[in-house]
């Protein structure tokens, strides 16, 4: 990487390391979620004060006006220490930038500042029970109240991350059910404290509940909160999803590092010999290393392309497909190698520290943000030019698609 980025990274590292005691992994151990959120807000404020939030946003949006490479350099340092930044990832990643882009102005600037300080949180209300992968199949409706000019929203969103703590959200709704499915959608921002909005956390198998069901019951949204044209919601939604395309990635698929597997297989035995001497274990270590090393090289190449001003392709699909699937299998095998001790489960350990936790949370990782099948379609269609799947609902008015 360029010397400028490396210098920036060094400065960032020094600052980040000075914050570990107050905000790092150990400081969070044992906190209630409310206390952890409060700590998170302080961490966000500290980053903002130190000039490390919104690194790649334009200055007139309240950002630092630096490049994506600066942001990624900071995030690579930040990610190492388990800071409480989860609550703000969606908020600052997509909803706030899209609103800034479509409705610049004082009110929005004030919201962005509050969000950057961690005082306010935004969520993204896209998915619905009727279709996780099929965004355009959504059914939540908005009807125009001719008298007031407001839109009246009814329906249900699902998988809305951090909705339970959100002050605002962006939402796609169906405003014309007689149009084809992609064409009858419109995009708004919405006040999550408005009457008729009900948030209900969804408990996941592994116990976390950062995702929610959100019910809309005659919720009134002024037309001034519309982003883009009536019927243009699908386009704005796609624009939203592409804002934050490059994030710091993890070749270990957000599971434990391979080194942990190596260390453990040195310490455990198979038939009286260190497990690492067993060919089955060696095969898995070597294959995993080769995969992770390639993922890291691809990521490095992406950064270099960005630095060279090139627009990189959809490598993210490859990364997620491969790394999370591999993590799931390796986690299972690591549990096997512990023998009966593989049954132990410590709720407190993170998915990067515990194979059992990593295994337990892997299914969520494989589904969230694009299931394997969708990622394969992305690769096949966007990169290789293979045909789209047959879609019987194509060109059919939404309200005439059989359910």
């Amino acid at each position, binding site marked *: 990487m360029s010397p400028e980025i490396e210098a920036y990274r060094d400065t960032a590292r020094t600052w980040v390391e000075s914050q570990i005691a107050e905000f790092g992994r150990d400081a969070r151990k044992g906190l209630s979620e409310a206390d952890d959120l409060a700590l998170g807000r302080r961490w966000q404020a500290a980053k903002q004060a130190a000039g490390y939030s919104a690194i790649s946003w334009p200055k007139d949006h309240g950002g630092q006006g630096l490049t994506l490479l600066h942001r990624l350099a900071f995030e690579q340092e930040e990610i190492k220490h388990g800071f409480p930044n989860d609550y703000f990832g969606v908020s600052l990643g997509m909803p706030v930038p899209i609103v800034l882009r479509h409705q610049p102005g004082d009110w929005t600037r004030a919201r962005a500042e509050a969000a950057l300080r961690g005082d306010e949180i935004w969520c993204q209300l896209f*998915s619905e029970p*009727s*279709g*996780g*992968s*099929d965004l355009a*199949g959504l059914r939540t409706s908005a009807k125009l109240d001719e008298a007031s000019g407001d839109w009246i929203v009814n329906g249900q969103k*699902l*998988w809305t991350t951090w909705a339970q703590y959100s002050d605002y959200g962006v939402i796609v709704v169906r405003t014309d059910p007689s149009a084809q499915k992609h064409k009858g959608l419109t995009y708004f921002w919405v006040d999550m404290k408005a009457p008729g909005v009900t948030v209900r956390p*969804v*408990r*996941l*198998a*592994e*116990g976390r509940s950062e995702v929610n069901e959100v019910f809309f019951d005659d919720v009134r949204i002024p037309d001034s909160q519309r982003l883009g044209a009536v019927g243009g919601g699908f386009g704005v939604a796609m624009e939203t999803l592409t804002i934050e395309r490059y994030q710091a990635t993890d070749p270990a698929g957000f599971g434990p590092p391979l080194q942990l597997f190596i260390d453990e297989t040195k310490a*455990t*035995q*198979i*038939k*009286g010999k260190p*497990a690492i001497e*067993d060919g*089955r274990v060696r095969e898995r270590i070597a294959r995993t290393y080769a995969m992770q090393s390639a993922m890291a090289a691809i990521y490095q190449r992406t950064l270099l392309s960005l630095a060279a001003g090139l627009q990189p392709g959809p490598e993210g699909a490859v990364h997620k497909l491969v790394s999370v699937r591999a993590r*799931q299998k390796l986690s*299972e095998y690591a*549990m*096997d*190698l*512990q*023998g*009966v*001790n*593989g*049954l*132990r*489960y*410590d*709720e407190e350990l993170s998915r990067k520290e515990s194979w*059992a936790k990593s*295994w*337990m949370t892997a*299914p*969520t990782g*494989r*589904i*969230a943000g694009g*299931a*394997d*099948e969708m990622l*394969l379609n992305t690769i096949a269609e966007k990169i290789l030019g293979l045909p789209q*799947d*047959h*879609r*019987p*609902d*194509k060109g*059919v008015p939404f309200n005439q*698609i*059989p*359910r």
Partner: protein
Amino acid sequence: MTILYDEQQQAIADEAGRILAARTSGERLKQLLETTGAHDEAFWETCKEQGWTGIGIPEEDGGIGLGLIELGLVAEAIGAVAAGAPFLGTGFGAAQAILAHGDAETRAAWLPKLASGEAIGAIAFAEGADMIPAAPALRLTNGRLSGVKPAVAGGASADVAIVLASGEHGPVLALVALKQDGVSAQAFETFDNSRCTADLTFDGADAVTLGAADAAQAALDILSLQAVVTAHEQVGGASKMMNTARDYALTRQAFGQVIGGFQSVKHRIAEDYVLVELARANALQAAASQGTEAFARNAAAARLSATEAYDTVSRDSTQVHGGIGVTWESDLHLHQRRARSLAIEQGPTPFWEDILVDLLAGEPA
């Protein structure tokens, strides 16, 4: 023995499935996940009431004297509902150890109770990654046991355990009553709490040496028998998850059609069907070969394909369900968890691979 079920066997299977469907519930299983060392009382009562606890025990010892095939069918039905207690399998293992190596007194003391379910049995051979330790850390000296057996399935509730310990002249199998001073069972958090897994600590507890000349071989024989029962349970779970995925794929719509119309979903379920059928064939073949020279080999093969099937199908079924599949509410995670606890409890895959290859190669390698 044949490998087609006869009418009586089919009736046992149907009846077990019917009763278990009526008496078990995902809600209760999820409550058990949130406690440590507790089991589903209603399920265990059913096992006793239906006589399932006595299936593998001869009539003269208080059982009903049926075989592995019948027990396997019940285990398959149990696997389908991911039932909330491991005692049927662990008790079977304990009973088999007593049948093979116990003297008349031991048989009389324990077999009728195990057959009726009044007593809960457990097997405690493993120490960490070593399923059958060549030199167990648990020691038996002058009829007294000292040391720890970690992570014993059913250990939190069991009344009696068969342990592999180091005696004065090498490894021995011993029977130890667990409700005595000098024994403590420490249940701990697992990802599948109704297995009642516990560390058993012995501090000079009374134990009876069983008459197994080659204790390691005897332990393996018992594990093999248990493995066949477990393989049926795994097949039951895998088959249930495969069918759940199939049913979901037939109703869930996306992009204007049921998702079962997408080959990525359709072929994945077909591959899962194949894994289930291979595992089912091996499980039944193993049960049917009890007592023959081929049994040990068949048991290992059954264990391997059943573990692969249940792990894979539960992974795939969750994937086919998408977001709904990873919710607490969906119950799919009950099988995800059970697939792993069954995969580990009686020896994970590398252990059985080694057993099988040793058998096939004609000598320990």
